[in-house]
């Protein structure tokens, strides 16, 4: 489950070789399409690792790929460059650190996201939240402290000053009068 990407790569980039034997064929009968890109119900079309509904994990998770938790995790999650989604049936008891966190289920623990935390309708979160952009939908239950991370945007470089338009001396300019042509 965790090495899905790796398996895909292995199969896809295997150098061409003579026709495999029958035993090899049976061993390698799994086509690449058996590892489809997982389209999650939470809107991500990227390949993500997932912890299924019936799984219970005791321990810490760290890595460099997106993760969807639909099962139960007791431990911390550390995905500093990726997105963590706690699905509707997901339950995390522990701290979470990720680039982006989306909670549809339950989290009991502190959350820190370098970018966005989204707590969806019906989600239940007990713990402190620190993020650049915390988003909390109506009817989500949240108990805890919220702190936004302020990102100081660099000030735009000052524009080079354009030369001022020449000042026309009204007195020096020749006085022109509208010419009226009379037929």
């Amino acid at each position: 489950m965790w090495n899905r990407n790796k398996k895909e790569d292995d199969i896809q980039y295997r150098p061409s070789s003579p026709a495999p034997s029958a035993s090899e064929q049976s061993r390698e009968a799994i086509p690449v399409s058996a590892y489809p890109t997982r389209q999650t119900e939470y809107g991500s079309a990227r390949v993500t690792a997932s912890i299924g509904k019936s799984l219970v994990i005791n321990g810490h998770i760290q890595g460099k790929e997106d993760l969807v938790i639909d099962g139960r995790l007791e431990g911390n999650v550390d995905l500093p460059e990726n997105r963590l989604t706690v699905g509707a049936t997901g339950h995390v008891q522990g701290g979470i650190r990720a680039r982006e966190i989306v909670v549809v289920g339950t989290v009991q623990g502190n959350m820190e996201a370098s970018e966005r935390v989204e707590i969806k309708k019906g989600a239940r979160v007990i713990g402190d939240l620190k993020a650049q952009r915390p988003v909390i939908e109506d009817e989500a239950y949240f108990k805890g402290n919220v702190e936004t991370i302020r990102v100081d945007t660099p000030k735009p470089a000052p524009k080079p000053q354009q030369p001022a338009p020449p000042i026309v001396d009204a007195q020096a300019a020749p006085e022109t009068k509208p010419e009226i042509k009379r037929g």
Partner: protein
Amino acid sequence: MNWRPQPPTSSTTSSSNVPAGARRSYALESLTNLLRTQEGLQILDLGGLNQANLDFVTGLGHRLYAEDIVKACDAFFTKQEFANKQFDVHRIGQFIDQTFDFPDQSSDGALVWDVLQFLPNPIAQAVLDRLYRILAPESFLLAFFHPESGGPAAKPHSCRIIDAKHLMFVPRESPRTIELYTTRSIERFFHKFASVKFFLTRENLQEVIVKR
């Protein structure tokens, strides 16, 4: 709700940006002026977190602690206890300890909204006693008291800050009934606090700013 609060830094508000249903709140305006004088304050929001209040308070450079006291109360006490209106002192103590797990004088302000009216009186009093302990001296508390026992006003509301002067009240579902308070009983309710300032609105809603 699609609207977002106005940037708190703007000192004036044009009424054209205010969505329909929003109401002017002088207590909120007074409170915003207090919040603007400092940064990094710890503010409690006891009405349940919503995006508008989160954006407004954190936009002013403060931290927000959120809890939905009415929901927490419903989850802690049994239907039997609510029906009999009999609440054991130890149970109330447990609820308060579980809900307000803060060191003394650690908070700089509390947005109580209309929550106290939807808690049974002994629990509301216990909440207020604990708030007195956890609020720092000179800090403030904002509370609202509806005058009616029926109609839409007699339901708990989600109070959303539109901008420094405007609020929106969104009714929310709750089985709790309203407890009515007169001006006198509100003063008695906050007797431990240093001062109570009333702002009377057109609908006789009492807006109160209490100083610790």
